């Protein structure tokens, strides 16, 4: 089965639950006291989609979104971006548009965008109407989903939908133009006994 590596970057204001969504997806766990500034350097999970394996390489902001200091490297080569807001905080939805703008400026042209309203388990303190968010997502041709990292609602579905939207053959990412990762071992390995 063909394995495809898909870089996914997370965007959205501090505290909306970006890391929690990935934690739930990758480790199937939830930590309400997750440290707000310290992210993980690298998270991966492979899922099957039709006759392909999709290995998601998920980049967390590492807190660099707090003062809008995300580097261009963060967006580079991303197949998809998950832009998260908190359904209980209106202002996190209004700033969403800035993140979309930022993504259009720095991200690859054909990036799949997923608008994600997190904390949908807190429906009684909701400030953002589902319809408003859905209309906005439709207007920019983005995926829309409401999630709860806490109660594991729609997390896998979010990634399945991303898989579905990724173009099946990715002509722009042929291996010819790709570089390589530096490995610890030299490529010319010397013979060693045992």
């Amino acid at each position, binding site marked *: 089965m063909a394995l495809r590596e898909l870089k996914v970057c997370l965007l959205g204001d501090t505290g909306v639950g970006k890391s929690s969504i990935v934690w739930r997806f990758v480790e199937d766990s939830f930590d309400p006291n997750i440290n707000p500034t310290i992210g993980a350097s690298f998270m991966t999970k492979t899922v099957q989609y039709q006759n392909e394996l999709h290995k998601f390489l998920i980049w967390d902001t590492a807190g660099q979104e707090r003062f809008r200091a995300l580097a261009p*490297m963060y967006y580079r080569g991303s197949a998809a971006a998950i832009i998260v807001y908190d359904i209980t905080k209106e202002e996190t939805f209004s700033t969403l548009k800035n993140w979309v703008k930022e993504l259009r400026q720095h991200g690859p042209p054909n990036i799949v965008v997923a608008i994600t309203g997190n904390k949908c388990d807190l429906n009684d303190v909701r400030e953002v109407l589902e319809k408003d968010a859905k209309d906005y997502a439709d207007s920019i041709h983005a995926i829309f989903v409401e999630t709860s990292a806490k109660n594991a609602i729609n997390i896998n579905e979010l990634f399945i939908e991303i898989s579905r939207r990724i173009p099946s053959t990715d002509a722009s990412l042929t291996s010819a133009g790709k*570089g390589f990762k530096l490995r610890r071992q030299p*490529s*010319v390995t010397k013979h060693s006994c045992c």
Partner: protein
Amino acid sequence: MNEEYDVIVLGTGLTECILSGIMSVNGKKVLHMDRNTYYGGESASITPLEDLYKRFKIPGTPPESMGRGRDWNVDLIPKFLMANGQLVNMLQLTEVTRYMDFKMIEGSFVYKGGKIFKVPSTEAEALASGLMGLFEKRRFRKFLLSCTTFDEKDPKTLEGVDPKKTTMRDMYKKFDLGQDVIDFTGHALALYRTDDYLDQPCLETINRIKLYSESLARYGKSPYLYPLYGLGELPQGFARLSAIYGGTYMLNKPIEEIVFENGRVIGVKSEGEVARCKQLICDPSYVPNQVTKVGQVIRVICILSHPIKNTNDVNSCQIIIPQNQVNRKSDIYVCMISSAHNVAAQGKYIAIVSTTVETSDPEREIKPALELLEPVEQKFVSISDMYAPTDLGTESQVFISRTYDATTHFETTCDDIKDIYKRMMGSEFDFEEMKRKKCDIFGEDQ
């Protein structure tokens, strides 16, 4: 930001970002700020191309033939990574290499008698090379073998030579090497910019030759590596490392004042607020009164629509013009990369010429290099002062990096990082210090 930090770092050049990463990984609370809106300072790669035109005050906008502006990432300072060098070691220990992809530089060339020759990378190439005569090749081979098998801990390995006492000049004599081979070895393999090394003990030169041949052995075509999207990715990668370990990042922050108390730094004032700190790291531009000018470098960025002539149409290369070939004291370097590295539009090449300024007419000094590149579509010339700190930071706890020099690799940058570390921490830098202190890679790649 009005909090207390262990270390504040000003400027996001490579040196500052690596130090910031080391400090954060070792549990220091770090605040990292830059007055610019982008990462990298002097070691940035400029994008889009329109910004490069603006920066160099070229009138008008780039012509249509330059393609999309966003496809360009143009380095301000040309350098390559030695495949077995200190920076690669740092990238691997910190796993910052996960954030980047690299390509090999396809060839290294040296200028002799107005022509360019490939620096041989295999024994077969060495035998076929027009750089030296047959008998010289044999003597050179013996010399090279002697260097590469040398073990610093076992002095017997160098045929009775004491590497700390014998000069390189005498070492060449011992192996009966001629002037051409000496020039080639010192400048294209040991990568010296001047001939001052000849009268120094040979140890350093032998180690440099070893670094070159070990780097060459790693990937084959040349000893150099280059990151896709340009060198500006390097500071961004180390900044991310620092952020993952809790470092706070702010760009576009005007720095109003570095605040001292009894001659010791206590904080930094920006936009009316003071962030307090115990130690400060910064590049020379933030402390113009605490640095001294140590020289000048001229760099000419040239955009070409063709690969450099007589290089077998490689998509990337280095050309070294040894000083005595053009009656100078220091070598001229050309670093070329292209669209294959995602730094230029399709079919375009970027060749950057650089050297240490020796006269009052630096543009004339680099003419032999420019002649190799003709025709040049667009030139961007910069002559920049190099600074070194006058204050080593012992009292003030302000630690200032050195300006990037004219060398074509990052070894001297890494030496500066190790030196600043030692002054800050009072102990020798150990690469193990850079290892990530916790498991922060999740999923299948743990």
